[in-house]
């Protein structure tokens, strides 16, 4: 027995190699076949010659004979079954019984079901991986199907996400980007700008000056139509080179590229012209007028800074009157910054009661007697010095602190008046009252301040401008009546500059009028006649009449000649602190004489 010989019982061979066959060496007839192979061979296989059953594929040769088999015992064979085209792969072994044993397995495509050969698992040896290939292939198919499903799910999620994104970034009403959408797109435009310095970029922020009116008078539906048209016009004018967004309400923003700075200005004008055309619907034609804050965006700008600058320009532009284009510049920025700082300081000054009344003398023209003073608010802003009253009073109005300012000046003036009266100097004081202070509570408050100091109300004259009266005539009338009832006089200030309404003199219980400096300073004959007539009218109506702005002796003489009662102005005395006024009294009297 050869040293490498192995003894296997037929039963073991059957169990281990279901695809075996045993071939007689002499007659080259098949002696026996395994369970698996038996399923594949024709029923009369034992009567058929070897080359009637198999065709040899490898090793390449002309025919399958025992002689050839013995020459290639170390080779793998591939045999093709002639009747079924099924392939077998395996090896031949020589047995001790003058036979050769083929042990192999069938070669199947992974996607084939073995069932089509009539084979089941029990026909395969445990170590035969053929069924595993079929199972693995099936599982691979399932994995691929799952991968496809995952991919479809991701696509669907991505699509949903995109749709959500569009929804979240678009204004539903106008179909242009909303604040979020504009911000995002704008950031990406800015990014490009940083890499393309020569390009000029304009950002314009605008809103409609009369949108509230349109909404209130024609309804929200019309208002919505206007906004849609507004957005469409902007989109049309900036075209594909620009970006339009609605930040909210009637506030829109545009970002667009230009070739140069000159072009930027042209673009801004185009935008404004486009939106300023009337809105027409059926029989309705509404004028549209927008205010636009514009900024030339720099590469260093962020969306936040660009929109902020445009906003500041628009806001400040509006403060100076609605409508038009307001450009943002560094100087402008500085002035805005300065203003913001000044507002902070003013607020502190009002809180700390450090705004002082200065007093400008008023004389009786007939007697030349000093009869009183007009109290004028003055603010010394520390190192920055005196701030012009028109500036800080305007800021106080923006801060909503006019009432506090009025009251601070009133109380300080009454304190001074009380001192003067204590020294036997029974002057009157004129105190300005702003529109904001015209409230029913003013009557009691002023009256209380007078009583607290035991000042006779007849020594206080409150001055109101005609503008104040126009804003709320009915309330002003009631307040003046209330003040008069407490013996406090009210005069019309700046008479002759505004409405100069005679009805105000007729209807309101005012004690007098103060003629504006512009009338006094006009030496034209016609102006003088008007001034004369006004004085005569006041005398006829038994109204006190004060002429302000006297800067020359000639003016003083003229007023005295036309029997104007009182006068004030630089010629008589500049406003000053109470101390300064006291020192000037002798000179004043001499001057008036």
């Amino acid at each position, binding site marked *: 027995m050869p040293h490498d010989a192995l003894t296997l019982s037929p039963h073991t061979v059957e169990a281990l190699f279901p695809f075996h066959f045993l071939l007689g060496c002499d007659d080259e007839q098949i002696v026996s076949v395994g369970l698996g192979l038996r399923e594949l061979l024709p029923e009369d296989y034992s009567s058929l010659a070897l080359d009637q059953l198999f065709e040899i594929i490898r090793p390449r040769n002309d025919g399958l004979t025992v002689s050839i088999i013995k020459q290639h015992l170390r080779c793998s064979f591939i045999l093709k079954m002639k009747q079924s085209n099924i392939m077998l792969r395996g090896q031949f072994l020589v047995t001790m019984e003058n036979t050769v044993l083929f042990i192999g397995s069938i070669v199947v495509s992974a996607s084939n*079901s073995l069932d089509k050969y009539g084979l*089941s*698992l029990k026909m395969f040896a*445990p170590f035969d991986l053929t*069924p595993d290939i079929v199972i693995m292939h*099936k599982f691979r198919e*399932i994995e691929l199907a799952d991968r496809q*499903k995952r991919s479809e799910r991701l696509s669907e999620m991505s699509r949903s996400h995109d749709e959500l994104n569009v929804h979240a970034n678009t204004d539903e009403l106008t179909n242009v980007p909303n604040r979020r959408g504009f911000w995002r797109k704008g950031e990406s435009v800015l990014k490009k700008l940083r890499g393309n310095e020569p390009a000029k970029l304009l950002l314009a922020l605008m809103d409609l000056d009369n949108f509230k009116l349109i909404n209130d008078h024609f309804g929200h539906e019309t208002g919505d139509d206007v906004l849609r048209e507004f957005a469409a016009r902007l989109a049309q004018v900036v075209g594909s080179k620009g970006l339009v967004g609605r930040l909210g309400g009637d506030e829109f923003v545009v970002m667009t590229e230009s070739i140069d700075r000159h072009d930027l200005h042209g673009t801004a004008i185009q935008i404004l012209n486009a939106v300023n055309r009337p809105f027409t619907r059926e029989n309705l034609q509404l004028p549209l007028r927008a205010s636009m804050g514009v900024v030339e965006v720099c590469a260093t700008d962020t969306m936040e800074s660009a929109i902020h600058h445009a906003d500041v320009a628009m806001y400040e532009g509006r403060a100076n009157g609605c409508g038009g284009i307001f450009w943002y510049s560094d100087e402008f920025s500085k002035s805005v910054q300065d203003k913001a700082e000044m507002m902070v300081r003013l607020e502190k000054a009002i809180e700390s009661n450090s705004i002082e009344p200065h007093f400008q003398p008023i004389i009786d023209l007939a007697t030349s007697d000093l009869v009183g003073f007009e109290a004028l608010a003055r603010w010394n802003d520390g190192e920055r010095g005196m701030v012009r009253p028109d500036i800080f009073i305007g800021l106080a109005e923006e801060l909503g602190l006019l009432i506090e300012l009025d009251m601070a000046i009133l109380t300080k003036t009454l304190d001074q008046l009380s001192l003067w009266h204590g020294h036997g100097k029974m002057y009157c004081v004129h105190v300005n009252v702003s529109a904001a202070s015209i409230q029913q509570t003013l009557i009691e408050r002023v009256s209380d301040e007078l009583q607290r100091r035991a000042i006779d109300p007849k020594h206080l004259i409150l001055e109101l401008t005609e503008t104040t009266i126009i804003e709320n005539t009915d309330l002003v009338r009631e307040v003046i009546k209330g003040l008069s009832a407490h013996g406090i006089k009210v005069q019309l200030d700046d008479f002759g500059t505004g409405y100069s309404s005679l009805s105000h003199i007729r209807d309101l219980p005012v004690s007098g009028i103060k003629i504006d400096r512009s009338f006094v300073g006009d030496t034209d004959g016609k102006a003088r006649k008007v001034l004369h007539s006004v004085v005569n009218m006041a005398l006829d109506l038994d109204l006190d009449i004060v002429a302000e702005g006297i800067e020359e002796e000639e003016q003083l003489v003229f007023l005295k000649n036309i029997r104007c009662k009182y006068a004030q102005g630089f010629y008589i005395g500049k406003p000053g602190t109470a101390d300064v006024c006291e020192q000037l009294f002798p000179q004043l009297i001499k001057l008036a004489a």
Partner: protein
Amino acid sequence: MYGMVNRAIEDLVVSSAGVEVWNEVRQAADVEPDGFLDSASYDDDVTYRLVAAASKVLQQPAEDILRAFGRHWILYTGKEGWASVFDLGGDNMVDFINGLDNMHARVQIALPDAQMPQFSVVECDGYLELTYRSIRTGFAPMVLGLLDGLAEQFDESWDIEHVVEKTETQDDIFHLRNSKQTGQIDEADAA
């Protein structure tokens, strides 16, 4: 449990009661609407929740649901979805059951995370004794359904009885009696 099992439950509910009922079951089981991936491994709890929810929504005992599911698994999921593999099991009930462990051993290579049950069959006097071993509990009714399905698939007639229920020390045992054989024997006896 692999997703294919959960998806088969979905398939059973949809085919027998409709999509709307499946959505009710899914929501009651707190399962996302995305659907299951056959090749993904899910926590067993998902399967338990689905069976409990289906029982509640369809107002049928969980055992009935599981039995119906076992039958469905063989007749539809196995036969249609896994036909190429299913066919390896053989062409009759006894061969198929005898080859199940062999089959699962090979499937385990493709699904390494699968916790597949084991089935062993002993031929007794006039019946087969099938022992079912699983790390899971509560799935014996599903085995009844699987056997129902196999009998139907191979057009055989078997009386199946769950004779021993699983305990800590004992596996589930089923007895299978071939009804036709029994019938023939009866006829012979009668003759």
